[in-house]
């Protein structure tokens, strides 16, 4: 079409195109703080030109569609880094609770072991003194309850982590469901040829959220998407979500099963669930074993030494602590008697002998646990707990820095810039004004034409 009406149509098309631009910009600005939102741009194209004789006239503009700007590669990298970050962070959080159980100076197991041996030395200068004997029993009791406390709190922390793991599995299942539901919608919308970028945005945000909890592998092709754990347990296949399940294992903690019924507990390494499981299933049980070994080694050595001596009444010494071995030793450590006269400080059957204190004190320098003295074994625990956290923290920082960088890159592709939108708004507004101006010019020209007709009649 050409002529004035053609021009009118071109101007109208211009109005529509600028309006589309205005709408896209406004939508970008409205979503500037929406997580996962990728900025959109209108795709404008020239309309097919019109041939008039030898002349080719442009026929205005048309809106081809709205493009959503995203980088799938960056999305994947961010998901990967989020898994690492989630894993290290939840591990550090768990171990920070454990760290307070192993202080390095004036309190806790180490200080109480030290105080016990000091109380023996104190008694050695006046071995028949009942209050000094009571002092040794009190120090022994303090040492035992320090072991009890640490062991019980390790157990409690492990139980807490067990609950956490269960809740995280529920979260995983919820998010998988949401993603599957989105996949169904996506398929519907895309089959009708409509714009589905906002669904992609939502889905990508949900996958990031999922990556924070568990290690996820994704294979996507257009709107189709398969999500599995890194080891291949299915989570989402298009519109179908596969729920993970939990069940108590023989070791007293919840095990995680894939929808196919495989135990995948040991395979999960990423996301907060990975960190939680690492603390729950590796670090804490390892600490418990060492604590039990120290407690039972110490008790055994002290009991042996105690039995070599004689008590205040000249009778041979019995056990100083209740005998303990193996798992749960630290939790059940307890002094065997409350009567201070039963303490076998002597070696010759008299009340004033301190001959056996040297045997008891010598335990401080004996290898009682994995070839280490009590003090060394405890300091080794301190070192391990400290190292696990400092390494974890270093990983959190490293993956945090990496994640920041990736997010910056992603944002440079997909982020909404207010400056950019402001200038776009200005452009669209001016162009709209200009198109409107063209319409009013055509209007005047048409009026002129109409008036011409009126005069001639």
């Amino acid at each position, binding site marked *: 079409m050409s002529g004035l009406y053609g021009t009118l149509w071109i101007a109208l098309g211009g109005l529509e195109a600028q309006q589309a631009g205005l709408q896209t910009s406004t939508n970008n600005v409205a979503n500037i703080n929406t997580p996962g939102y990728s900025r959109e741009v209108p795709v404008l194209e020239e309309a097919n030109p019109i041939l008039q004789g030898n002349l080719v006239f442009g026929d205005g503009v048309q809106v081809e569609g709205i493009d959503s700007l995203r980088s799938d590669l960056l999305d994947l990298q961010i998901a990967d880094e989020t898994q690492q970050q989630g894993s290290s962070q939840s591990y550090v959080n768990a171990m920070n609770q454990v760290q307070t159980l192993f202080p390095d100076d004036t309190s806790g197991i180490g200080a109480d072991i030290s105080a016990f041996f000091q109380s023996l030395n104190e008694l050695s200068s006046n071995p028949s003194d009942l209050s000094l004997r009571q002092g040794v029993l009190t120090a022994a009791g303090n040492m035992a309850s320090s072991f009890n406390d640490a062991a019980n709190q390790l157990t409690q922390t492990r139980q807490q982590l067990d609950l956490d793991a269960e809740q995280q599995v529920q979260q995983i299942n919820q998010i998988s469901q949401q993603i599957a539901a989105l996949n169904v919608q996506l398929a519907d919308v895309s089959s009708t040829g409509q714009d589905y970028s906002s669904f992609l945005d939502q889905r990508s945000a949900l996958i990031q959220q999922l990556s924070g909890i568990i290690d996820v592998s994704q294979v996507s092709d257009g709107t189709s998407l398969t999500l599995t754990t890194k080891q291949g347990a299915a989570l989402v296949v298009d519109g179908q979500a596969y729920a993970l399940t939990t069940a108590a294992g023989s070791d007293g903690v919840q095990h995680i099963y894939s929808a196919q019924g495989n135990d995948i507990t040991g395979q999960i390494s990423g996301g907060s669930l990975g960190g939680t499981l690492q603390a729950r299933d590796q670090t804490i049980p390892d600490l418990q074993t060492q604590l039990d070994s120290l407690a039972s080694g110490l008790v055994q050595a002290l009991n042996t030494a105690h039995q070599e001596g004689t008590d205040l009444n000249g009778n041979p010494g019995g056990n100083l602590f209740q005998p303990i071995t193996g798992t749960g030793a630290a939790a059940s450590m307890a002094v065997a008697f409350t009567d201070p006269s039963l303490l076998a400080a002597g070696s010759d059957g008299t*009340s004033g002998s301190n001959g056996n204190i040297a045997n008891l004190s010598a335990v401080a320098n004996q290898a009682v646990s994995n070839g280490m003295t009590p003090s060394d074994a405890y300091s080794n625990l301190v070192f391990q707990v400290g190292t696990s956290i400092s390494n974890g923290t270093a990983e959190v920082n490293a993956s945090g820095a990496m994640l920041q960088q990736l997010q910056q890159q992603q944002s440079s592709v997909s982020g909404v810039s207010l400056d950019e939108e402001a200038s776009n708004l200005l452009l669209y507004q001016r162009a709209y004004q200009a198109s409107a101006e063209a319409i009013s010019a055509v209007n005047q020209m048409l009026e002129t034409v109409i008036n011409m007709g009126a005069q001639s009649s």
Partner: protein
Amino acid sequence: MRISPELTQVVLNALNVSDQAEQTALQQMTTGRRVNQDSDDPAAAAQEVGIAFQMDSCDQYLRSIGGIESELQTADSSLNSAVTALQQAISLGVEGANGTLSQQNRDTLAAEVTGISQQILGVANLSYNGHYVFAGTADSQPPYVANPNSPGGIEYQGNDNTNSVEINSGQSVVVNQPGSALFSASGANVFQALSDLVTALQDPNATTDEIGSATTELRGAFDQLTSARTFYGSTIDQLNSAQDVLNSENVQLSQQQNNVVGVDLNVAATNLTNAEEARNATVQAAATMNDLSLMDYLTPTTTA
């Protein structure tokens, strides 16, 4: 290349970093420690466990030494009074061996020697902190009691055993001398000698030689007591030098502890200043950044 428009996150991250540095520096300055939890420096924390154990031991050794020393001093000064009394008894014996004395005079001397014997019995039964100091390890009852069938009429109920106390890692000292080494050594029994002297002085038929030999016997017992008593002096010396060693060990250990987990306050203060400066700079940059929106510049023209 398009610049990332989301600067807020950058600012927040920068603030987070400087806040953390500030917090660390502040904590270090208030606690005086660089290592405030195991994870701050695991190797240092583990080392401190050992250092704390040694410091505790040092303190305890010093306390024990204090207790032992005051007991040994009490024992030694009591023995000193016994030694003086025995010297007096010996001179009474010498006086008694003088042939010009009447029996009445010798009876008076004998009564004095009996008194001295009682005095020494008191010393031998000295108790300290609820136990008898010269009873060996059988120290819950008085070591010396009257028994007519025993030498000198005094029976030793204690034993010959001694106690040792550790006064530094791997170093122990014997802390008591049994009465059997001091007062009732075989062949040099103080009570036997005093009793023999009393018997000789009281016997009207006793020759001056007999009194003289009783006095000689007493000298033998005196020599045994004074030589055994040197134990106290030399042990106290040993305790004093152990004390010096422990005190300097303690100083060394606190220095070591400070090196391992303590903080250099100058460094911490500098860190704090740096962190604060970084924070201020970030905040100022962020404040400027917010003014630079194109939106603000467009507003007047669109309303005009």
